[in-house]
């Protein structure tokens, strides 16, 4: 009987330890998107669209920086190009490739407009962003700050 009680206690303590470790791991942690992803939210939020996320890494695998930043005239600044859909359909900026010939066309709205609504224009994961507190809304708010 004593042995049984001891076993029960051991089981209980194991359950406690498991719960403690589970809560430690299940706490909301700010997930980090890919370094150099650019969120562009000049006009999207106001127009009721999700902000645009430009993945640098995906384009960098296929093109050198020069193609967009010298030939197509993209400024080295997040949100600094004042891109809108009219310009893209006109073949400027993203529209130079996203025209259904080099890359998929503009009817795939959600492929670019895929950000969490309300996320401001910024370089994601930049050194400066890592040094200061994040200005954008995290995916999950901590339970005590709701």
């Amino acid at each position, binding site marked *: *009987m*004593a042995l049984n*009680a*001891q076993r*029960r*206690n051991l089981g*209980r*303590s194991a359950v*406690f*330890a498991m719960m*403690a470790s589970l809560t*430690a791991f299940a706490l909301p*942690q*700010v*997930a*980090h*998107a*890919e*370094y*150099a*992803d650019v969120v562009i939210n000049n006009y999207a939020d106001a127009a009721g669209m*999700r902000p645009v*996320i430009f*993945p*640098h*890494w*995906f384009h*960098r*695998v*296929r*093109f*050198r*920086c*020069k*193609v967009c*930043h*010298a*030939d197509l005239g993209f400024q*080295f600044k*997040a949100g600094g190009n004042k891109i809108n859909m009219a310009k893209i359909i006109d073949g400027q900026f993203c529209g*130079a*490739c996203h025209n259904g010939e*080099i890359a998929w066309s503009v009817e*795939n*709205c*959600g*492929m670019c407009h*895929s*950000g*969490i609504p309300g*996320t401001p224009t910024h*370089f*994601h*994961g*930049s*050194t*400066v962003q*890592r*040094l200061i507190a994040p200005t954008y809304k995290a*995916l999950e708010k901590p339970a005590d700050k709701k």
Partner: protein
Amino acid sequence: MSYKAHARWLTALVTMLIAVTAWSSEVLQPAQPAAVEWSSSTDQGSVFAAISESEVMHLADVSSANTFNQNLKKHEANLPPPEDGIHDPNNEATFALQPPKVAFKGLPESTFGNQVDWVKSIDQKALAPRWDRVNPDEEPFVLDMDIVRPVKASMPDVVFPHRQHTEWLACSNCHPAIFIPQKGANQISMSAILLGEKCGVCHGKVSFPIETKTCKKCHSKPKPDDWKPPLSSATVNNPWK
């Protein structure tokens, strides 16, 4: 041997036998009555349970507060878009986007930024990004020229390699808007870089980040043997000199 001596031996033997049997019964058969008493008392059992539970709770509290390296932030890199924290998982098309890990398979690795060594990727021909928007055969104009910039403080001097940069960029990307192509014409400091000027136009945002791990990528030339740290010209009247 006399009869008396025999009797003495016998008594000694008998006492020894008695002692041995007593000892063996004590040792080989543990005190059963005590065990029965202990196990039958249920009160004692519950007290034991209460103590051990509170002890476990206490230990769990302490260990979660004092986890190892709790301030050393380590984030899993290259998560698929729906889990990365900026893509909206409620957007259907988010799930159609390529996860970075799939694209980075087989590329040389690094320990910062994208976790990909982009320069090595091109050098090893693991990647063949286009130099022209439509023509895949156009080759970049590569300029192999290193610029050494002496650093005032004790950090190793900076070597700027044109080769790695011209693999990716055209001259007009940097010259003359960001860097005046003339010796001594450019004031560069780490604060300017962190504020997004000079090298910081790209580094720290898209090309490799500014971290402890990456200092040596630029500050790569050891000081000359006769180098001495400059003496401060600050005075009591002008401490910020």
